[in-house]
């Protein structure tokens, strides 16, 4: 049952991503990315990371992307301006990307993947993902957790400082 959903979600992600990188309108690109994040959240649920799916929607789409959108609107980007969209190195870049894709595919093709350990997935039978994550996060990974909080603080200060309007005397 999961597999068709997987295909559905992944197709959705890929297509929206492809569209995203090809749009000339920045708002369109941002909104398309939001959409791809939604698909991604579904994928996370399929992979048994429900909390992460929620976090994805809440933080990534709801926070980061909103931030992007606000910035776009703040910067008053001319959406319909005709400028050259594509970089001069695009051919070389496509080439590299394709080659890399080919290489990764060949790596993956070679790989022997062991059998998967199966998670028991029963509703309510096992502790939920949130509980499990919480118990790990605050014990085993408490140090990186604190560090990340400081990182967030630093980023916040940095963003404020960088974006501040200079007061000219």
């Amino acid at each position, binding site marked *: 049952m999961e597999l068709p959903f997987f295909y559905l979600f992944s197709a959705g992600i890929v297509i929206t991503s492809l569209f995203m990188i090809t749009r000339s309108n920045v708002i369109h690109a941002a909104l398309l990315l939001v959409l791809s994040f939604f698909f991604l959240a579904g994928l996370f649920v399929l992979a048994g990371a429900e909390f992460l799916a929620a976090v994805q929607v809440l933080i990534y789409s709801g926070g980061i992307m909103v931030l992007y959108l606000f910035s776009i609107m703040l910067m008053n980007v001319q959406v319909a301006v005709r400028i050259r969209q594509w970089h001069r190195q695009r051919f070389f870049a496509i080439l590299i990307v394709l080659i890399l894709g080919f290489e*990764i595919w060949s790596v993956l093709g070679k790989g022997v993947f062991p059998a998967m350990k199966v998670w028991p997935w029963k509703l309510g039978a096992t502790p939920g993902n949130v509980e499990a994550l919480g118990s790990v996060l605050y014990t085993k990974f408490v140090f990186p957790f604190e560090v990340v909080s400081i990182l967030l603080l630093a980023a916040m200060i940095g963003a404020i400082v960088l974006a501040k309007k200079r007061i000219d005397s």
Partner: protein
Amino acid sequence: MISNAWLIPLFPVVGVLINGFFGKRLGEKSGYVATLMAGLSLLVVILIANEMIFGAGGKHTIHLWDWISAGSFSVSLSFLIDPLSTIMLLVVSGVGFLVHLYSIGYMHGDPGFSRFFTYLNLFMLSMFLLVLGDNYLVMFVGWEGVGLCSYLLIGFWYEKKSASDAGKKAFIVNRIGDAGFLLGMFLIWMLADTLTYQEVSQSTSKFAVNINVLGIETTYASIIGLLLFIGAMGKSAQIPLYVWLPDAMEGPTPVSALIHAATMVTAGVYMVARTSPIYVDAALALEVIAVVGALTAIFAASIGLVQNDIKRVLAYSTVSQLGFMFMALGVGAFTAGVFHLMTHAFFKGLLFLGSGSVIHALHHAPEEQQQDMRYMGGLKSKMPITYWTFLIGAIAIAGVPPFAGFWSKDEILANAFFSGHTFVWIVGSIAALMTAFYMFRLIFMTFHGEMRVDSHAREHIHESPPAMTIPLILLAVLSIFGGIIPGFPPEKGWIHDFLAPSLAKMSHVTHHSSFNLISSAHAASGEAGGHHGPEAMYLIILAIFIAVGGIVIAWSMYGKKSKIPDKIQHKFPGLYKILLNKYYIDEFYQKYIVEPIYRLMKFLWNFDSKVVDGAVNGSTLVTVLTSRVSSLFDLRTVDGAVNGVANFVRFFSQVFKFLQSGMVQNYLLAMLLGVFLMLSAYLLQ
């Protein structure tokens, strides 16, 4: 007093110092100072002579101080007082004192008055050293000293070029002789390890060694004798080094009298006499000396026959008489040589001073006429003292008995004859004839006949002041009695006995024993040429004949008005010209000796300056070239290397700078490219 003999040279030293430093201030008084010093030395000499002659006599060495002490070579400044040095001291100090006295009058008014007396005293000092020294080195010091004074005094009027040239000529020719002297001294020391006369005379065996030089069988003694004689040739004006003496007449007349008649020129004779112990074994050297002496005597006399300058005649006469002295030494009659030295000092000194008196009287005449006999004449009545003393001197030199010259000259000729040197005797006799002739030619031309003096000067002719005439008179007395008193009877006189300890005795192989008139005492001593009976008398008569004959010939040609001189001159114009020009010897020397040396000197000078300068310039050239090369190298190679590195970097940077596009996406692409490469590497492993 003998032990205080060091006083003798001390007085002249004091004179030199006083006159040298204060002469200008003293002015004419410097003459008194110098004469006083000469007089004091004479006094000391007389006292010493008194002890030597009438007292104990003997040989005394007065040691003053050690001079050189280098390993085995040691020489001390010591004086030797013995009969020979006593005689020499008497002559030098006596005549020297008289000349000092004379010069006070003669040099009066000359701007260099005090300088003259300084030099005179210096000369006395050197001559005393020469005569007093007890070894060859001290003698050499005095030898050089008198040479220096001779130069200073000949060139006294140095502003006159001929005078300064004459001084130079004297000194240079002397030095040529000195080279021989030095070599002789070296050889003596080499063989005998000493230079003291006493020790040398005791080591004669070392010199008598026979050696063979260039095929000639001879002894070391002869080599030494010849070398020392070369020194004597220079100092005593023998052939070929006599050329300086006639020119030396450029100096003031007292100088000619003292130095070139009585004292300095006799230094050579003294030196040979001192070396007589060596000469006894030097048969070859003695032969050479005798022949050279004889040739010099006749050669100089022949030139003196036709000279017109009064002093030149006397100068050539001096050379000739010196030749006589060496003739005596050469035949082994050392005593006769010294005896003639003494008498010659008297009459030649007198003659020179007399000529000075004449020149002094003519000082208002034009300069080239003052000494020319053709412009004199008839001075007899105007200058009686000068005339009579001069006449006495002329008679003495001509060899008329009983005046001084006869005794010594006859002894020489007799010794030459009886020792078998017939050639020498003949030549000497002819020279004696010439001597008498030219002396009286001089007398007649100067004092007799009509006065040919310049009319302006005639009124000023007067007899000389007493300062000048007193020495003339004193010397005239000595010229009369100075021969017969010491020298009679011949060979057995006082002087022969007195000098015997100082001079070596020759033993002659050619001894005509059958004519031995003298008792065996003399035969045992083997004295050279003891007078042998009738031969001796014949010789004496012949000598008197020669002397008188010469006077008569001179009288007939110059004493009365005569055309003979002109006739002879016209008949033998070439001969006359050669004699007048002194056989062109000076010109010969100039052309074949002096000028080649000048050329060599110039060549060496040029060579030196070119080579030396060339080397210096060449080195600068080399320096400049190498600096250019190294600068080139530095510019091209070194700078090139540095610039090359920079260019290399710049070239590559201009290629690689395009990597820095400034565009982040390019950098990202590069990163992906790197990932790709790493993956490929991993995959292709």
